[in-house]
């Protein structure tokens, strides 16, 4: 258990992190972890059915879940004065969920509808196609976290209960709480979780993830006005000694507002609302990609230009670029950890990626040690321009031939309906409109 006392943070964030990787799912029932997590707050033995959520929301609490390859999190946010009762409810959802037949079946149906929505969404389709293209096809990482239609068919109430019994238990579980506590958080946690026992809990290993063969894929979206592009490959995790170096290098190439990529493709040419390059770490291994959405007319030009800008052989990372990147990452850190949810979220990430409690301090020290030479060398060791995997989601009639002409002769065209994932769209987009 880890607690962070943060004066003035009136909303407490509590994360229960389970060392339960998605690779623990039965291959034929992938999605069972997601359905299990989503059904936790649909009723408990003590508060069956809607009574649970009603009680929780009446206390002003919000319940959430996070399903990632390395493990599951259940999350509660609640004003400090109501933490005690909220933690009791939180523990009920984790330890003794009802898993009513109708609730499990409905969540499977809602997940299938969510997949349909994702398949209709260009960016989500690109993300799913990219992970499938870049990770070892036998690895769990290559497939959607929430399961595919074929595997969801096997996610029955019985399968969900079985997954919960084998996977949810106090061994390997970490409770993280952050905020301005009104009462002793350890005592409250003891009262809520102290009696948790599960003799049937089975621990699952965290298998490493491998890479796939390089490939070039165009997912057809007839008539699309833009093409979503992902160009990248297999990457590294945060424990790799090159992590700080490549964080700096990728910020210079495609992270900053005036990065090499965004300065040209957005600010000079107006091809896109924004393009970025990012390394996305897993617990072991990871991926990297340049990504952006470009109007169809210029997408192939943007891709060619982007690939050129990714090539730093004759344009190594400069001292100014290193200074700016280090100043940015060290500057945004204190704000990120000033609020309870940010602190708890980072602590959970560290548990899931097995990074240790002092990770933030170590990573800042590693950033400050980056030199132009080390950043350039790390980038060049990882970004192999001749073996980049390409995913384009767009209008194949207008894109396939031009892509082959500029060198992607291995391009295969897929139908959009064979692809999918991620969270479904919300309703009407009513966020403010902003620039970068």
């Amino acid at each position, binding site marked *: 258990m880890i607690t962070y006392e943060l004066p003035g943070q009136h909303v407490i964030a509590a994360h229960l992190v389970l060392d339960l990787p998605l690779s623990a799912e039965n291959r034929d029932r992938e999605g069972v972890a997601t359905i299990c997590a989503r059904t936790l707050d649909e009723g408990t033995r003590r508060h069956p059915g809607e009574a649970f959520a009603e009680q929780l929301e009446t206390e002003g609490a919000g319940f959430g879940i996070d399903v990632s390859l390395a493990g599951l999190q259940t999350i509660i946010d609640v004003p400090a004065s109501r933490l005690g009762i909220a933690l009791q409810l939180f523990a009920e959802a984790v330890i003794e969920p009802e898993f009513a037949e109708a609730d499990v079946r409905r969540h499977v149906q809602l997940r299938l509808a969510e997949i349909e929505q994702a398949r209709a969404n260009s960016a989500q389709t690109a993300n799913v196609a990219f992970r499938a293209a870049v990770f070892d096809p036998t690895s769990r990482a290559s497939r959607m976290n929430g399961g595919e239609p074929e595997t969801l068919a096997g996610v029955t109430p019985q399968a969900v209960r079985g997954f919960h019994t084998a996977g949810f238990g106090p061994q390997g579980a970490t409770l993280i709480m952050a905020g301005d506590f009104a009462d002793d958080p350890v005592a409250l946690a003891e009262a809520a979780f102290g009696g948790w026992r599960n003799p049937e809990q089975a621990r699952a290993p965290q298998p490493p993830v491998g890479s796939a063969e390089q490939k070039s894929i165009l997912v057809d979206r007839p008539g699309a006005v833009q093409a979503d592009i992902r160009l990248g490959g297999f990457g590294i995790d945060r424990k790799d000694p090159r992590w700080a170096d490549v964080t700096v290098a990728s910020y210079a190439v495609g992270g900053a507002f005036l990065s090499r990529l965004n300065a040209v493709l957005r600010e000079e040419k107006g091809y896109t609302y924004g393009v970025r390059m990012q390394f996305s770490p897993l617990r072991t291994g990871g991926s990297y990609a340049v990504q952006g959405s470009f109007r169809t007319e210029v997408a192939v030009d943007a891709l060619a230009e982007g690939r050129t800008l990714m090539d730093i052989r004759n344009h190594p990372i400069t001292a100014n670029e290193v200074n700016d990147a280090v100043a*940015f990452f060290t500057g945004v850190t204190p704000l990120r950890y000033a609020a309870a949810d940010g602190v708890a979220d980072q602590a959970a990430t560290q548990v899931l990626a097995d990074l240790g409690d002092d990770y933030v301090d170590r990573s800042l020290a590693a950033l400050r040690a980056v030199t132009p030479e080390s950043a350039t060398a790390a980038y060049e060791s990882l970004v192999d321009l001749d073996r980049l995997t390409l995913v384009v989601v767009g209008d194949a009639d207008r894109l396939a031939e031009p892509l082959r002409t500029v060198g992607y002769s291995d391009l295969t065209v897929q139908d959009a309906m064979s692809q999918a994932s991620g969270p479904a769209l919300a309703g*009407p987009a009513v966020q403010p409109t*902003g*620039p970068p």
Partner: protein
Amino acid sequence: MSLAPATLLRYPIEEQTLDNGLRVIASPDHGAPSVAVNLWYNVGARHEEPGRTGFAHLFEHIMFQGSANVPSGQHIALMQAAGASVNATTWFDRTNYFETLPTGGLDLALWLEADRLGSLLDALTQQNLDNQREVVKEEKRQRYDNVPYGDVIERLIALTFPAEHPYGHTTIGSMEDLNAATLSDVAAFFRRHYVPNNAVLTIAGDVEPADAFARADTYFGPLPAGPLPDKPREDPMPPLGSDSGDLPRAETSAVVPAEAVYISWRLPARSTPDFDALDLLFGVLGHGQTSRLHKRLVREAELAETASAACMGLIGGNSYGFGYARARDGVTVEELEAAMLAEVDSLAEAGPTEIELLRAKAQYERHWLHELARIDSRADTLGEYATLLGGPHLINTRLGEVHAVEPDQISSASQDWFGVDGRATLIYRKDQG
């Protein structure tokens, strides 16, 4: 069950007005060595001229294209190199610009903001305008045109307000109008709206108020005030259908995965007690897992894959409320609409239960506390309450106001605005792809 909010807020807030009319708000918080600089300009999509929809937002992009002493793109580049998170957004009622960074960068942030407020037009070129016009058109494609149901908000607004009404168009605007924008439009818009006396500067975080005011005066003090622009019309429009009796209704179709029903309402402006009452009512109708729409449509009847409702508070005479649901496979939009309306009608008829109201208030409390938890979003809320509402101090008493809303206020506001059949409906059908 208590009637008072569980949390008492005492954020320190001080306000001064510079000689040129710029309002400056300081709210110290030494919890982290960071400071939030946040500027609200009292200009948004509702101030746009006919034929120039989307202009306030396009203009916001131009604000990053350089000023007398700052090259194009360098505002963000310099801020990021000082460790800042930086951005801006445009909405119906306002435009905000903000950066949050280590305290040592405060002078640079203020200097950059003041330089563009003082001298944007010195750096304005056709090339910058053309480039950002393309960027904004890409934004429109990415966020609206290339997204399923991306046209819903535009269609709903068109059903809810007349086209010439300040709220009759979206902030992203139309491609046609974006294409039509000229350099002289940019210059005129800047002169009309971007004057210090039409803005609020909030400095929150690791700086004492006296220091914040002195620095604000150093950088913004020399800028001259200007004439304030005319206000757009703010006369409240009555609920939909109350003038002609016809309720707006439209159908559209596209290649989408599921059919959907959207309902919208004209509501009173957000500064009114009626709006607070309706905001809680919409929470009961469609916010969260225990809301009426989710419970009945998603959980019990299994008609919808998702269903919710919300209010969008606006200051110009009216606000806007909406509810929506997407149909499960095999459910017709007619069944879905009937089920939604049954929930609306029963809530209008009998009002929320005591426990539902308590729950809506408790959920409001958590969201409000969360909004104020970080100096960046706290600064933004201070600027919002100073620019659009009764003043920044209200953020400390807001929870008390919401908790004080009584059931009879809800039923009266509901009768006037919600339960009058005064709504617009958009039916979204599925084309076969």
